[in-house]
C-alpha cells in the first residue's frame, strides 16, 4: 500500500509540476527556435518562397527537376551559413537585370560553397527573389544523393544544350569559367584568376544574354589547400584531390568562418558572331578583366579576413 501511495504521489508530482514545467521549457525552446528561424530566414521568407513557387507553377513544372519545396527544406541550413556563419555582405545585387542573364564569378574554396552563397544572396537579398541555376560537373551526376540534391535545388549538368534551354526559359545562369582550375587553387594562388573557358560567351552571343560579373571575396580562405595530388585524384576517380590538412583536425571539416563579400558588377551586353573564335576570346578577356577589377576593389576594401 505504501509503495502504491508513493508511486501515486510521484505521479501527482509528475503531472502537477513536472509536466507544466516541461511544457514551459518546450514552449520556450519553440519560441527561441522560431525567433532564430525568423532572424535567419527573414520575415518575408514566405512571400519570397511564393514568388518562386508561382513562377514554376506557371511554367508547368521545371523540366530539370527543380522543386521549390526542396528550397524550403534547405532554406534554414543555407540561411544559417549565409547570414550567421559567413555573415555575407552583398553589394549591388540589384544590378542583376530581370529575365535571362549569365552571372560570371571567380571560383574558389575547394568545395563550391561560393555557388551556394551566390544562390542564397539571389534568393534572400534580391528583389524579386531568383533561383540560381549553376552548371555542375557531370561527375556529380554519377553520385547518389548528390545528383538528386543538385537536381532538386535547380542545378543542372554543365552542357551547352542545357544552358541554352535554361536561358530560353528566362532563367538566371551562374557560370564559373575557371572551372576546376579555379575551385582547387592552392592557398598561395588565392585571388589569382585562372584561365577562363569560352563556352559561356558563345552562349551569351547566341542567345543575346547580358553578362553580370561577380566577385566573391572570402571563399579563398575557407579551406587552406597546400597543393593538388594528381595520383590520388586518379586513384579515387575524383576530378581533383586537394591537400587540405585542416580536414584532419577535429571540427576542421567545416570551412573556416571567413566573412564573405559578394560584389555584383554592371551588366555587360555583347554582340557578335558566336563562331568567330578570336572575337569570342577578346570578349571573354573583357569579362575576365571586369571580374578581376571588382575582385581587386573588393580585396582592397577588406580590413580583415574574418570580420
Amino acid at each position: 500500500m505504501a509503495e502504491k501511495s508513493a508511486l501515486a504521489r510521484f505521479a501527482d508530482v509528475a503531472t502537477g509540476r513536472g509536466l507544466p514545467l516541461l511544457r514551459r521549457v518546450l514552449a520556450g525552446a519553440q519560441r527561441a527556435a522560431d525567433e532564430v528561424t525568423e532572424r535567419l530566414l527573414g520575415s518575408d521568407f514566405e512571400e519570397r518562397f511564393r514568388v518562386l513557387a508561382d513562377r514554376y507553377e506557371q511554367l508547368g513544372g521545371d523540366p530539370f527537376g527543380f522543386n521549390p519545396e526542396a528550397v524550403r527544406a534547405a532554406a534554414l541550413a543555407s540561411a544559417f551559413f549565409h547570414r550567421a556563419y559567413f555573415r555575407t555582405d552583398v553589394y549591388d545585387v540589384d544590378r542583376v537585370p530581370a529575365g535571362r542573364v549569365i552571372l560570371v564569378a571567380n571560383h574558389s574554396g575547394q568545395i563550391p560553397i561560393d555557388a551556394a552563397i551566390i544562390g542564397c544572396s539571389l534568393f534572400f537579398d534580391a528583389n524579386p527573389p531568383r533561383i540560381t541555376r549553376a552548371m555542375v560537373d557531370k561527375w556529380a551526376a554519377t553520385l547518389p544523393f548528390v545528383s538528386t540534391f543538385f537536381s532538386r535545388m535547380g542545378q543542372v549538368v554543365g552542357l551547352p544544350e542545357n544552358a541554352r534551354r535554361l536561358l530560353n526559359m528566362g532563367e538566371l545562369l551562374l557560370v564559373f569559367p575557371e572551372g576546376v582550375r579555379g575551385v582547387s587553387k592552392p592557398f598561395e594562388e588565392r585571388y589569382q584568376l585562372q584561365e577562363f573557358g569560352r563556352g559561356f560567351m558563345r552562349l551569351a552571343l547566341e542567345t543575346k544574354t547580358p553578362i553580370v560579373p561577380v566577385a566573391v571575396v572570402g571563399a579563398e580562405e575557407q579551406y587552406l589547400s597546400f597543393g593538388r595530388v594528381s595520383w590520388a585524384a586518379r586513384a579515387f576517380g575524383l576530378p581533383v584531390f586537394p591537400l587540405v590538412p585542416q580536414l584532419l583536425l577535429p571540427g576542421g571539416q567545416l570551412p573556416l568562418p571567413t566573412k564573405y563579400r559578394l560584389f555584383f558588377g554592371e551588366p555587360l551586353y555583347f554582340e557578335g558572331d558566336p563562331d568567330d573564335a578570336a572575337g569570342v576570346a577578346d570578349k571573354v578577356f573583357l569579362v575576365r578583366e571586369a571580374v578581376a577589377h571588382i575582385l581587386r576593389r573588393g580585396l582592397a576594401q577588406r580590413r580583415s579576413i574574418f570580420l
Partner: protein
Amino acid sequence: MTQPPPTPFVADDGAVVITGICGRLGRRLARKLHRQSRVIGIDRRSFPDRPADVEHHELDLRSARVRDIFRDGVRALVHLGVVHDPRGDSAEHHASNVAGLQKLLEYVEYFGIPKVVLLSSANVYGPRPDNPQFLSEDAPLLGAGPFSRIRDLVELDMCAQSFFLRLPAVKTVILRPTHILGTVRNAPSNYLRLSVVPTLLGFDPMLQAVHQDDVVRAIMLALAPTARGIYNIAGPPPVPLSRVIELLERQTVGVPHTVARLGVERLFRWRVTSFPAPELDFIRYVCMIDDSRARRDLGYAPTHGLVATLCAVDEERWLG
C-alpha cells in the same frame, strides 16, 4: 488535352502492312487503322480476335512468301516486328531482327512502296550521366554501349536511316518514342506494375513516358503521305521517378546501386527476373528526348495527361 486530335490524312487506296501486328501495340494500331485503310498483318503469332477485314499472315519475316504480300496494292509498311526477349538466344534475335528488316526494305524498294514507318525507341540514345536533359534527333545513338540488347535496336535504326538517306523518294519515318506505358509488355510498364517498386538509393532521375495510344496516333500521323524524317515522341512533361511512384500509389524500396546491380545479375541468371542488370541505368541517369520536331512537322501532341499515362499500366491488369 481537351482539343480533338488532328485526324491524319489516310487515302483509302492501298493497304498498310503491319509487321508484329499481334503485339499489344500492333493490335491497337490495327483496330484504329482498319476503319480507314486496308490492313495486312504479318506475325509469327496468331491474331485470334482480329477484325474481320484485317488480313493476317502467320509468317516469319524472313520467309520468301512475305515478298508476295508486297506485290500489289500496298501503300505503306509499318514495322513493329522487332523482337525483344532478354531470355532468348541473342544471335538468333539479331539475325531475325536485322535480316528481317533488310528483306522488308528490299521489297519496299523493289515494288516502289512510297511509305515506311519504323518504330524505334528513345532507348537508342541510352541513359548517361552526361546526357543533355533533352536529347534531339541528332544526338548520337550511344545506347548500345552497356546494353547488348539495345544493339539490335540501334542497328535497326541505323538500317532505316541509311535507307532513308539512300532513297529520298520513299517517305521513311523513324519514330523514337520514350518509355511507352500501357497494357504493353515492355520493361518500363512491367517495372511500374510491380507491387513494390525498387529504386536506386539516392538516385531520382527525371523521367518521361508516353501513353500507348499516343504512340498509335503518332504512327497514324507518320503515315501521312508527306511525312518524312526521324522524330522523337514524348508524352506529358517529365517528372521525377519518385513522383511517378507516388502517383501510382506503389510502395517503394531504395537499394544501393552496387547491391542492386549484383542482385539483379544473380536474379536474372536464376531466371527470377527478366530485367537485365545494365538496364538499371534507366532509373539512374536521364534519357529524355525533345519532341518539338514531331510537334512541329507531324502535328503530334500527346492527348493523355501524366496521370492517365501512368495509370494505363494498370488497365487489364486482372484480365490476364
